[in-house]
Each structure stands twice: as structure tokens, then as C-alpha cells.
């Protein structure tokens, strides 16, 4: 190891007390195949700190009842904690108004809500929807379903070999039929950070609203929906140290008010007769049925936890991990990084010559190292870069430089077995 690499490694650990943070995560103490767990599949789902686990237990043991219904003590406290969590999420993304924060079951549900509530009302035959090559299937398939239903058309922003969007091409796709833009903030497969603020400004200058898929961005960078000026921002709780089954759709109030409800049922109505139903106000109009109350309150605790550490500190530590891991991989013959965008979040997709990603995944698991292998639900990216699948290490703020070393040692073991 060269002196400069050693410097990279130890500078960042001294600036950020990763060992103290790791102590908050009980699952990180596990061993897998008699090796310490090295969890590098955070882009798929992150782990939960004891603070969030404790909050779920406290809710379930002392505060649970259905919300927005009864006048009794538990219903009132559950409702108030549920709404308090909404305000925490509002602050987390700097939304102007808590009514703009809608609870969903996750990013996929959030995007489907926009497709049904906005798309089916405002997008028609011959209209065009702009998406990008970097989208996760969850920001492709709902729009394809809409396009098929309405006779609308999908236009796709291409990428270069590094995995960066071609912004000139994006701008050329606009015409008078363009009605909507869907773009991911951070690519889940490659880690590329897209210039969404500029893309949003360009679309808005042409009167076109923009949905941002923030599933991979919200856990790793400070999100300010007012600064971005986006119309919709979707993300998931379970990638943010929160529970599964909860997610958020931020939507601009003026747009949400004009949208159709997505699901019908209790809570989303003001009055119901068989002649006519009056819908509730936002955000409740979009929250039919009993929501995942515990999960929402748990997500509130998760964003408290992240905010206390600080999203800037988190981003800096993760960037140091990515830089160190990338430097190490670049010194290894026969290993190459897939996705070399200038601006990247802590996602490292890689290929090893002569070894299929599934074999890499199985053998790394033998070393206790958890990575994702496959097409990452982003087949268009894989097709564009001519790789059937990749191995993906994705870092979180609780990962350490030693864990990067374990990954690198694991890859060396794989290469040794396959020579």
C-alpha cells in the first residue's frame, strides 16, 4: 500500500467516530460464516440503530391505537406522534408545509401515486414523458403502464460510458408535447449523482413538472426540496435506517390539491353518501386506510438520528469510503469499476474478469461480506454498458475503512479461486 492511500484511509476515520456509531447498530455485531459481518448492501436496505428499534418498542408498548378516529387517550397520542413524525420528515427535506409530506409504503408506492393521481389526470394521447437510462424499474414501469393506457410516449435521456446523463440530449427531448419528467437523483446501479437542480430548472422554464426518485439520495445527502424546486420527491424509510413498509412522497401543495386520489377508503374522505363522496384535504386525501403508524413514527426517529450525526458529515464519511475503495480496486488487475461518473454517491459497482457476479457474491458471503449481485432492477443501464450484471458494494455511514479492506481481500480471494 502506498503512503498516499494510507493517508486517505486514516484521515477520514479520525474525522468521524465510526466505532461509536457502529455501537448503535446491534446487527453489525453478527458473524456470518464465522467472519464478522461486513454489510455492504446498503443501497438495497440499510440497518436500524438501537434508537429506532427502541422507539418502535416504546410506541408498540405504550402508545399504539388507530389514528384520526377515537377520542380516547391512546388514539390521541398515536395520532399526535404520527403527525409529529410527519413534521420531522418535513424538516428533514425542508418542505415548506407539512401537508406536502405524504406517507406511502415506499418509493415505488410514491411513484405509483403520482402516476395515478397526476399522470392519469393530466397526461393524454400523444403526450410525452421524459425518463432517463439510469432509472430503477420502479420509475420506468408505472410510466409505461400509463403510456400504454393513454397512448402517451416515453422518451429516454441517454448516458455516456461513465454513467453520466447527457444533458444536451435531455434538453433536445423537450417539445410542445412534453408533459412530465421523471429522473433519479442518484443511480442505484452506478451511484451517479444527476444534476437534477439544473434539469428541473430547464423543465420548469417549459412548464413541465418533475418527479425525482430520491430513494438512493435521501440516505446519503442533504435533500432540500425547496432549493431543488422539484414538484415531487419520492423516497423510502428502509434505506434511511427506518422500517420497511413506509416511504414518503413530497409533492408541491398546489399540484397535490388538483390531483386525483390514488386509493379510496377510510381517512381519505370528508363525507360519504352513495350519491357523492367529498375527499379529504391533503395530505389525508392520499392516505386511505390505516397507515403503517409504527413505521412512520420509527422513520421519524430515524431522521432524528441521522440529523443528529449530520447529513453533511455522513456524506463526507461515505465519500471517503468510496474514494478509498475505488483507489484500491483501481490497483487490482482484472477488476474494473462500472460507473465512473465525476459525481458519485457511495455505490461501487464492479466487474472481475472471468468471474460471474453471482459467483463473486457467493464467495464474498463466505468471507462475511454482503454485496448485491445482478442487474439491480436497472436493466436498461446494464444493456447500455454491455454488462449482464455487476457486483455492487454500497456503503453507509456506519461502514469502516477496515470493511473496505475486507471487501478488497475478499475480491482477491475470489480471483485466487478462479485462476
Amino acid at each position, binding site marked *: 500500500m502506498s503512503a498516499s492511500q494510507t493517508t486517505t484511509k486514516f484521515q477520514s476515520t479520525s474525522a468521524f467516530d465510526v466505532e461509536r456509531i457502529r455501537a448503535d447498530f446491534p446487527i453489525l455485531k453478527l458473524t456470518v460464516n464465522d467472519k464478522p459481518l461486513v454489510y455492504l448492501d446498503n443501497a438495497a436496505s440499510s440497518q436500524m440503530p438501537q434508537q429506532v428499534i427502541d422507539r418502535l418498542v416504546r410506541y408498540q408498548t405504550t402508545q399504539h391505537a388507530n389514528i384520526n378516529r377515537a377520542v380516547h387517550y391512546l388514539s390521541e397520542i398515536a395520532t399526535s406522534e404520527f403527525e409529529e413524525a410527519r413534521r420531522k420528515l418535513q424538516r428533514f427535506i425542508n418542505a415548506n408545509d407539512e401537508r406536502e409530506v405524504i406517507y406511502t409504503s415506499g418509493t415505488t408506492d410514491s411513484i405509483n401515486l403520482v402516476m395515478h393521481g397526476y399522470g392519469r389526470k393530466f397526461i393524454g394521447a400523444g403526450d410525452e414523458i421524459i425518463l432517463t437510462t439510469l432509472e430503477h424499474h420502479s420509475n420506468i414501469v408505472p410510466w409505461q403502464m400509463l403510456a400504454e393506457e393513454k397512448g402517451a410516449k416515453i422518451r429516454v435521456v441517454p448516458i455516456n460510458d461513465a454513467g453520466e446523463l447527457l444533458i444536451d440530449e435531455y434538453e433536445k427531448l423537450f417539445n410542445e408535447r412534453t408533459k412530465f419528467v421523471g429522473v433519479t437523483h442518484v443511480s442505484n446501479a452506478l451511484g451517479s449523482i444527476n444534476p437534477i437542480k439544473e434539469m428541473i430548472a430547464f423543465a420548469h422554464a417549459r412548464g413541465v413538472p418533475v418527479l425525482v426518485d430520491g430513494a438512493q439520495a435521501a440516505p446519503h445527502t442533504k435533500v432540500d426540496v425547496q432549493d431543488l424546486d422539484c414538484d415531487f420527491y419520492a423516497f423510502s424509510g428502509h434505506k434511511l435506517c427506518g422500517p420497511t413498509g413506509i416511504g414518503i412522497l413530497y409533492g408541491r401543495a398546489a399540484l397535490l390539491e388538483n390531483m386525483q386520489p390514488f386509493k379510496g377508503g377510510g381517512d381519505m374522505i370528508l363525507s360519504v353518501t352513495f350519491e357523492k363522496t367529498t375527499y379529504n384535504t391533503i395530505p389525508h386525501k392520499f392516505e386511505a386506510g390505516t397507515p403503517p403508524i409504527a413505521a412512520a413514527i420509527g422513520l421519524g426517529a430515524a431522521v432524528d438520528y441521522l440529523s443528529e450525526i449530520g447529513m453533511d458529515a455522513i456524506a463526507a464519511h461515505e465519500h471517503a469510503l468510496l474514494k478509498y475503495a475505488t483507489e484500491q480496486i483501481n490497483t487490482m488487475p482484472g477488476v474494473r469499476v462500472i460507473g465512473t461518473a465525476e459525481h458519485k454517491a457511495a455505490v461501487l459497482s464492479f466487474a472481475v474478469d472471468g*468471474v460471474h457476479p453471482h459467483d463473486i457474491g457467493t464467495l464474498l458471503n*463466505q468471507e462475511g461480506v454482503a454485496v448485491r449481485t445482478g442487474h439491480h432492477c436497472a436493466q436498461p443501464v446494464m444493456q447500455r454498458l454491455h454488462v449482464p450484471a455487476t457486483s455492487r458494494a454500497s456503503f453507509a455511514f456506519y461502514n469502516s475503512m477496515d470493511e473496505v479492506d475486507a471487501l478488497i481481500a475478499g475480491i482477491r480471494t475470489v480471483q485466487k479461486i478462479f485462476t
Partner: protein
Amino acid sequence: MTNYKSLYQEVILDHNKKPRNYGTIESPSHHAVGHNPLCGDHISVDVVLGDERINNIAFQGESCAICKASASMMTTAIKGKTRAEAETLIQEFLAMATGKLSHDACPNIGRLAVFAGVSDLPTRVKCAILPWHTLSGAFNAVATTSTEAEQDPMHAPIGDA
């Protein structure tokens, strides 16, 4: 917990590196293509079935080491067998790989017992059985088969995100 390295034994690594009967056959009597949509792996199997025995067999495709070694060893095991013997071996292999039978309970399995360990790896079982599914498809004149086909006993989604 199983030592997964035991799956990557010398014989499997060797067949992955130097696959036997690799390629296509000009005019096969039976042919099928198998596909695992979860990982994009695909292989083709060509068979020349004579009056009594399988006179020739070849495979080709893109896949992981487990799948390629399984295909390679399948071709060497199948060549020269009758169709009935081959069908028996297919059933034994599928039962062993999916953990329904131990390799001791498979009288014809022979060296293919090196794949027994895959039954502990639910996400990798499909890699090992894809060639055998494809061969079965070829015998039954199913031109394309998939590990996600409805009739597949292993039909189950693998995670996503």
C-alpha cells in the same frame, strides 16, 4: 452453516474453465434454450438422439461458474445414455439440487454429487438446475424454457432493489 467454498471444488472450477461439449450441433434432433431472467444467464442445449442412445450433446451460453460446470458435467454424464436413463438422471439431479433427496439417495448421480451443496444456497439452486431444465425442455420439444416458468418447482422470486 455450510462452507460455501466447498461448492467451488476443483472439479467445478475445472469444468467452468474448460467446459466439455461446448458449442452447437449442426442438425440436432432436439434443441432448447434456457433462460434465468433474474440474472440474465442463458444457455442452449443441442441433442442428437439416435434410435437407442444419445449420440451427441452440446451446450453454449453465458452464465456463472455453477451453471456452466453443471451444464458441462451434464453433457459428459448424458452422452451415450438412453433417453429413459437421461430422464431418470434429470429427476435425480433436480431432486438433489433442490434438497428433496440427499445425494446418497440418488443411485445414478455419480460425480454430479459435487452439486449437492447448492441446495443450501436458495439463490444459487437455479444456476445449477438451468441446464437440466433446458435438457428436459429439449426432450419435450419446449423450445425455450425459463427458471421462472410456472411449472418450475423452483418458481420463486429472488430479491430486488
